[in-house]
Every structure is written in structure tokens, then in C-alpha cells.
């Protein structure tokens, strides 16, 4: 017990920083219904700006802190609020695409300017101990952070749980109809909460800079601690979120000393560091469904179904595509064939992601983690002398239960929680999972040699390309088969009305889990192909299986369209292949590739709200065409609008008006 008390103050200091990050996240989600995956990116930008002003430009820390807070917190907060407002009626997957796009953009921009190395920064607040609590010396820094986060938590609680305007802001997110029923203007509170949220992220980024170093990747990964705290607060309750952050902070501080007594196994040793992630999953596992509600879905519009091509066009297109892919080695030099082979690998992963996103309306931010499971499994199998085709299938099969585990925890709460769980899983895999001996081990590397099958040597790149093509065709066929099967039609129905589907007996949770498992299976096949190109796989932060790659892929798929085969192929080409051809093979493009991908993803996600067609129509009408641009569409709408007949019914004498005609359909 006394030992626990010794760790308590340092735990609270750590927890306070987590609380700041989590508060910003929960606050903005609560008031706008938009879960901001770029929250950690905002913290990172503030840390870099502070570093730039304070260290590189030599400013005193106080003005540097203030300017960074104003620029990133206030100005950045207002910009993100605009983005959130434009995403107000977007479906969950597009909200995730946009905020992940923003994260990719910020991460890529910071890396382009400052590099990916962790920049050391010495403490700027006085580090002398003010007083000691047990063995823990309390510094000005600790007091400032703890005081700030506790005060902020209390203040926000009063604003959002105890005032009318705060409550109404939250209520409007859940039921937009309430907007017309109230006199207050929730937009103001929403704007304020985005500013506060971004300021909190900025402050936490600047507080953490001297402790962890200035590194965009570290700060983005750290957000998972905030997710754990937010989950304990049910992504809603601000006080519980602060309490949750404190619990996590204390556990992170206290548990390592206890764990080292129990076991020297590095996996067990790593567990305390993953307390936030474990708590996040624990909440998903045990929370009753009604406690975690997905916010803002009442606002979401339905995505329009894509136009299907006629059969001759489809078959013709596939034949042409097949011919081109078969002929690739005849016109591409051998040196560039590796890029083509890995493009096929990424196509498979993109196809698995596309199937999940566009067919089932779920999104996974850990697709490359499934691919890593596939690559590592294949590596182990091949080391044990198992043949390549069998190793490929086993790799896919191993990913199925992993996909099931990740999805089952969060699926019942709704799409956004699946995205959160998969993001958490991807980070946990990156930080711990990849180091386990069943994946890449402490060496972080496993050989995945190219095979020799039935006397054919696939060790050379051209034969190996054809092997990759065969796997890609298999994966494409699985996607098309799913689309044409009962599962495909149930998924289409489910994306329109899960309520009606359940009312006819279909188990919608099972359907979602099944499609998630198939997606994980395919991603694992993609992982085997990708790792076969360099003939090894690693879990390095800069490697293909990192969290960052999963995120960038979500952004790229977001703007590559919604077709089951063409879109993943386009995405894979944009992501992997174009970089070897001019004008994309320049250093500048490669450096800012993520920025472009992020911008495009954001643009596609918000474009329905921008109403570009309407704007073009207005411009064209202003430039000569006098016809009112709205006249056509409105008339067309009136013509096609269903006319609701108001029938005169034979009603008994004295019937209330609500019983006839228009009164119908208004009951509870």
C-alpha cells in the first residue's frame, strides 16, 4: 500500500496530461458528433511550432507558448470546426476518412519539414522541486499540468452538464430536430468547444515536448492513452474521463514495478505501458450496449449507390485489365517489376478495405496490422518447410480470428467505435504485438522467401510478379463473390436499414463480424505478397506494416471511389506505383505525398456538403444563361414527388380530425 502511495503523485502527473488530451477529444465528440482522429496531430503541430519559436527562433518560452496556443489552438480549432460542420451529415466512414486524412496531412507535413527523428528539447518550466510527496518531488511543471487539467475538467463539467446552452448543444447532436425547438444557438457552443478541444491538444503537446521529445509519431501514438480515458468516461462524461485518465496514469506509473516482480518476460513487462489500450478494449467488452451510443448518426445522410456498368462493359473492362496486367513484364524493365509486384500486394489490401468500407459501412484503421499477421505467419510457416500456397492460406486463416476479436468488441456500439477499436489495435500491435515471437520477435524482422512451387522458380521477380497476380486475381474474385452472394445483398440491405434487416431475422452483428473476418483474411494475403517482394517483413515504424500506412491507405481509398475492383486498383497505383514515374518521382512529391493524399481525402469527404454542382450552376447562370438554375431541378422534384393522398374516410360521427387522412402516421 505504501509502495502504491509512492507512485500516486507521479501517476497523477502523467494522468493529468492524458486527461487534457482526452478532455479535448470527448468534448468535441460530445458537442459535434465528430470523433477527431487528428487530435494527436494537433498536439504534434503545437509541439513543433513551439519548438520552432522557442528553440530555433530563440523566443522566450512564454510568448512562444502563447503564440503556439493561439495559432494551433484557436485558429486551428476554428479550422477544424469548419471541417466538422461540413462533415455534419456525412456517413460515419466519410467522417473517419476526413479526420484520418487530416491526421495524415499533419503528420506528413511535420515529417516533411522537421524529419521523422525525435527532437530532444530541454525543459522550459522550472524543474526544481517545490516539495516532496513520499519519494516523489513535485515540480512547478507537475503542478501546472495537474492544476490545469483538473480545473479544466471541472469547468467543462459545469459548462456542459449544468448550463442550459451546454446541455442543448449535446442534445442537438443526438436529435437535430431539437434545433428548431429551442431558443439557444448551439453553433456558438460547438465552435467554442472545438477551440477548447484544440487548445487542450496544443497545451498537452507542448507539455509533453520536453518529456518525450518533439516527434509527430510519438505524439500520435500517445493519443491511445486518451482513448482509454475517454472510453472509461463512455466518450461522453467529462468528469469520468478525467478520473479515467488519472486511473490510467497511476496504473502506468505503478504497474511496471509490480510486473517486474512477477515475470521477466518482455511481453508481460510491456503490458503496463498498454494499460490504456487494454482498458479501451475492456470497456468495449463489458459495457452494456446502451451505455455507448454513436453520436451524430441521426444526422447522417445515406450514400448514393454507385451506378453499375452493363455486363459487356464490365467483362470487356476485366478482359482488358487482365491483358494489360499479363503483359506488364514485356514492357516494364525488370528493375521496376518489384514496384509492380508490391502494387498488386497493396491492391489486395485496398480491396479488403474497400469491401469492408463500401459494402458494410464499417472502417478499419488496422488493415496493415492484419497484413502483418499474414506476413509473419507466412514467414514462420515457410521457415518450418510448409509450401508457399499452404502458408498463404494459413496466413489468411490466422488473420480471421484476429479480425473477429477486434471487431466483436466494438461492433455492437456502432461504426465509429469500430474505427476507434481498430486504431487502438493498430497502435498496440505497433508498440507490443510486433515484438512478440509469434510475429516479428525482438529482432523486428522475419524472412519471407519467394517460393519454388512444383519445380517452378518464383524467386526471380518476373515469375514472382505472376504469382502475385494470381493471388490478386483470387482476392478480387473473393470480393466479387461476396458482392454477388447473399452476404453482399444482406450488406447492401443493412447499409439502408439495419432495423428492417433485423426485423426479418438476420443477425446484423454476425453479418458485420463475418465481413470483417473476410476482410482480415484478404488483408493477410496482401501482407504475404507485400513481404514477398523484399523477401522479409518487419514491424518497423517506417515499414509497410506501420500504423501510418494503415491510415494513409484509408485516406487514399477515401478518394479513389467506391468500386469493388477498379477503386482498390486505382488506390494501389496512386499509393505505390506512380512514385516511380515522372512527375511523381521527384523528391518534392514523395515528401509531400501524404499532404496531397490527406487533402484529397478531406475534399472528397466534404464535397457533398460543398454542393459543387450547385456552385457551378450558379456560376454558369451568372455568366449569360438567364435561366434560373434551380428551376429545372425543383420542377423535376415536384414532378416525381410522391403525392400523399388525403383520403376521406368513413369515420364515425364525432371523430377527432387526427383520425382521418393526414392525422395518420403521427402516433408514437
Amino acid at each position, binding site marked *: 500500500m505504501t509502495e502504491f502511495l509512492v507512485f500516486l503523485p507521479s501517476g497523477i502527473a502523467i494522468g493529468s496530461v492524458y486527461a487534457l488530451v482526452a478532455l479535448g477529444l470527448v468534448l468535441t465528440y460530445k458537442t459535434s458528433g465528430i470523433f477527431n482522429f487528428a487530435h494527436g496531430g494537433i498536439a504534434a503541430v503545437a509541439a513543433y511550432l513551439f519548438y520552432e519559436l522557442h528553440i530555433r527562433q530563440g523566443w522566450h518560452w512564454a510568448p512562444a507558448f502563447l503564440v503556439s496556443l493561439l495559432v494551433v489552438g484557436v485558429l486551428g480549432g476554428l479550422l477544424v470546426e469548419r471541417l466538422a460542420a461540413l462533415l455534419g451529415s456525412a456517413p460515419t466512414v466519410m467522417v473517419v476518412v476526413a479526420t484520418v486524412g487530416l491526421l495524415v496531412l499533419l503528420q506528413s507535413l511535420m515529417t516533411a519539414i522537421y524529419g521523422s527523428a525525435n527532437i530532444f528539447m530541454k525543459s522550459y518550466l522550472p524543474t526544481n522541486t517545490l516539495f516532496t510527496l513520499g519519494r516523489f518531488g513535485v515540480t512547478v511543471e507537475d503542478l501546472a499540468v495537474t492544476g490545469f487539467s483538473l480545473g479544466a475538467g471541472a469547468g467543462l463539467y459545469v459548462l456542459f452538464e449544468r448550463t442550459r446552452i451546454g446541455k442543448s448543444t449535446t442534445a442537438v447532436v443526438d436529435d437535430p430536430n431539437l434545433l428548431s425547438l429551442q431558443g439557444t444557438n448551439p453553433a456558438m457552443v460547438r465552435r467554442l468547444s472545438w477551440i477548447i478541444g484544440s487548445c487542450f491538444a496544443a497545451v498537452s503537446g507542448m507539455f509533453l515536448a520536453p518529456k518525450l521529445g518533439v516527434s509527430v509519431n510519438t505524439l500520435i501514438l500517445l493519443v491511445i492513452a486518451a482513448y482509454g480515458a475517454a472510453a472509461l468516461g463512455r466518450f461522453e462524461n467529462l468528469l469520468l474521463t478525467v478520473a479515467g485518465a488519472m486511473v490510467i496514469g497511476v496504473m502506468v506509473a505503478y504497474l511496471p514495478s509490480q510486473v517486474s516482480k512477477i515475470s521477466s518476460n518482455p511481453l508481460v513487462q510491456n503490458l503496463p505501458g498498454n494499460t490504456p489500450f487494454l482498458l479501451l478494449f475492456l470497456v468495449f467488452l463489458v459495457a452494456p450496449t446502451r451505455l455507448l451510443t454513436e453520436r451524430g448518426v441521426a444526422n447522417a445522410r*445515406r450514400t*448514393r*449507390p454507385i451506378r453499375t456498368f452493363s455486363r459487356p462493359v464490365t467483362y470487356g473492362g476485366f478482359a482488358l485489365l487482365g491483358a494489360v496486367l499479363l503483359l506488364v513484364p514485356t514492357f516494364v524493365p525488370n528493375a521496376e517489376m518489384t514496384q509492380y509486384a508490391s502494387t498488386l500486394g497493396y491492391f489486395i489490401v485496398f480491396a479488403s478495405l474497400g469491401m469492408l468500407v463500401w459494402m458494410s459501412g464499417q472502417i478499419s484503421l488496422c488493415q496493415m496490422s492484419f497484413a502483418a499477421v499474414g506476413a509473419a505467419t507466412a514467414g514462420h510457416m515457410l521457415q518450418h518447410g510448409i509450401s508457399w500456397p499452404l502458408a498463404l492460406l494459413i496466413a489468411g486463416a490466422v488473420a480471421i480470428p484476429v479480425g473477429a476479436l477486434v471487431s466483436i468488441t466494438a461492433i455492437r456500439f456502432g461504426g465509429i467505435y469500430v474505427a476507434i477499436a481498430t486504431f487502438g489495435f493498430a497502435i498496440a500491435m505497433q508498440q507490443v504485438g510486433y515484438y512478440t515471437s509469434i510475429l516479428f520477435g525482438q529482432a523486428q524482422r522475419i524472412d519471407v522467401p519467394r517460393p519454388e512451387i512444383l519445380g517452378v522458380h518464383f524467386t526471380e521477380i518476373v515469375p514472382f510478379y505472376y504469382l502475385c497476380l494470381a493471388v490478386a486475381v483470387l482476392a478480387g474474385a473473393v470480393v466479387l463473390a461476396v458482392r454477388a*452472394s*447473399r*452476404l453482399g*445483398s*444482406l450488406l*447492401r*440491405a443493412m*447499409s*439502408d*436499414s439495419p*432495423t*428492417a*434487416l*433485423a*426485423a*426479418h*431475422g*438476420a*443477425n*446484423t452483428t*454476425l*453479418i458485420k463480424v*463475418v465481413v470483417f473476418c473476410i476482410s482480415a483474411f484478404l488483408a493477410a494475403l496482401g501482407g504475404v505478397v507485400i513481404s514477398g517482394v523484399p523477401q522479409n517483413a518487419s514491424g518497423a515504424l517506417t515499414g509497410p506494416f506501420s500504423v501510418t500506412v494503415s491510415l494513409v491507405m484509408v485516406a487514399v481509398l477515401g478518394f479513389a471511389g467506391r468500386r469493388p475492383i477498379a477503386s482498390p486498383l486505382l488506390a494501389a497505383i496512386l499509393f505505390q506505383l506512380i512514385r516511380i514515374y515522372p512527375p511523381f518521382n521527384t523528391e518534392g512529391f514523395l515528401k509531400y505525398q501524404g499532404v496531397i493524399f490527406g487533402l484529397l481525402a478531406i475534399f472528397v469527404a466534404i464535397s457533398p456538403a460543398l454542393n459543387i454542382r450547385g456552385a457551378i450552376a450558379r456560376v454558369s447562370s451568372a455568366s449569360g444563361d438567364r435561366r434560373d438554375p434551380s428551376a429545372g431541378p425543383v420542377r423535376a422534384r415536384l414532378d*416525381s414527388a*410522391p*403525392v*400523399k*393522398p388525403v*383520403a*376521406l*374516410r*368513413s*369515420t*364515425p360521427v*364525432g*371523430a*377527432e380530425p*387526427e*383520425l382521418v387522412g393526414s*392525422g*395518420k*402516421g*403521427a*402516433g*408514437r
Partner: protein
Amino acid sequence: MSVDLDVKNVTVRFGGIVAVNEATVYANGGRITGLIGPNGAGKTTFFNACTGRNRPESGTVQLGEDRLDGHGTANRAHRGLGRTFQRMELFESLSVAENVRAGPSAHFSSFRLLGPLYATAKESKEVERRATDAMERCGITHLARKTVVDLSTGQRRLVELARAIATPFKFLLLDEPSSGLDAAETNAFGTVLTDHVAESGVGILLVEHDMALVSEICERIYVLDFGKIIYEGTTNDAMSSDLVRSAYLGEAIVA
């Protein structure tokens, strides 16, 4: 194979408001039973309680010998209790035929472990047969290839009904299925229901405001007011009951 729906003492509370209070309804299989009441009486809440969409504080729901309470919505549907919705729940991006087929297809998917993945040849044939029959019965065969968003409210109601009767449910809860239909459509609609009940033996509990339709096709009715069942009996008796007229039809009881 007709089974009865036996709902006993169901109470649903939202915070401090009692939406349904100790409601007991017994609806025979192979018959159409009416459930009427003014707006806000708790009819849809009662349906939601039967199908597991809300959590009643107390009460039991039994379909034939099968206790349904304690199961989720999909499981109750799997056991044979189907419903339509007052605010229509159609698959908006699908065609009429695909909507109707989705009903039995979803239902059959719940009977095998791999059911959600693929349909057996036998199932596909059965789905097709049921969908064709249902569309014909509801008079919407000519609309089969149209997307449901392009239909009128009345046509959409018929698609929802066709989907429900194409699905092999044992008992159906229909929530204001004729709202939005004109007089001729409502007449045809009544015939569809009576024919379906006569041929399949399925029981129907019908929430309906159109008293002409109710008195024509329902043998018995229940009247719900402020969450309480205030009357049960034959439709004709209900019309002459002072209590019902006062609660539902707004007439003052002449002392």
C-alpha cells in the same frame, strides 16, 4: 400451423412516463386482430416491446409455445414474429423485387451457421417463389425493377407489406400499414390481408387508424388509451361502447 400471440402484462416506462401499462393482448393465429387507440396511446411502443426493440419493465411475450421475451429483435423474428413499421423501413437503394426478396433471404440466413454467407439452391428457389407470390398478391409486380425511392407512399407501403408476407413469419404485427393509401388502395389492401391470413394461417395484429378498414377485416379489437388496454371485444361492440367512444373517438359520455 397457425399460432397465437399471447402478450401478458407488458409495462414500458421511459423515465417517469409509463408508455404502456400492464397491457395484455391475446391475438389468434389465422385471424386479424385490431389494436386501436388515439395518437400517443402507446401502440407502437407496445409493438416495440413485443419485438424486442425496447426493454419492457415487466410482462411476457409468447408466440405459440415459444417464450420470446428475453430474446433480441432478430431472434424474435427468427422465431416467427414479423412486423412492419409506422415510419417505413425500406432498403432505399434496392429495387422493389430486391426489397421483397431481402425479407425471406434475411430470414433464411438465420437458420444455418453459414446462412449469412450464401444461400443454398433450395433457399434461393424458395425466396424467389415467395417474393414473386407476394408481389403478385400486393399488385406490385409491374414495379419490380423500380428503385423504391421512386415510388409513391402508397406503393412503398405495399412493398413493405409484400416483404413481410413473403417472409415465412408465423405472426405479423402491422403498424398503420394503410397510412398513405387512397380509398381504392385501402380496399385492395384489406383483401390482400384477409386472403393472406386465410391461405397461410398467419395471425395479424393490426394497428390502424382507418376505422372502416378495421371494422371490415378485424374480428376482435383491443383499444389502448394512455398505455392501458381499456377495451377488448368484437369490433361492433367496441363501436357502441361508451368507454371506447369517449377515449378514442372523443365523444362525451351522455350522463
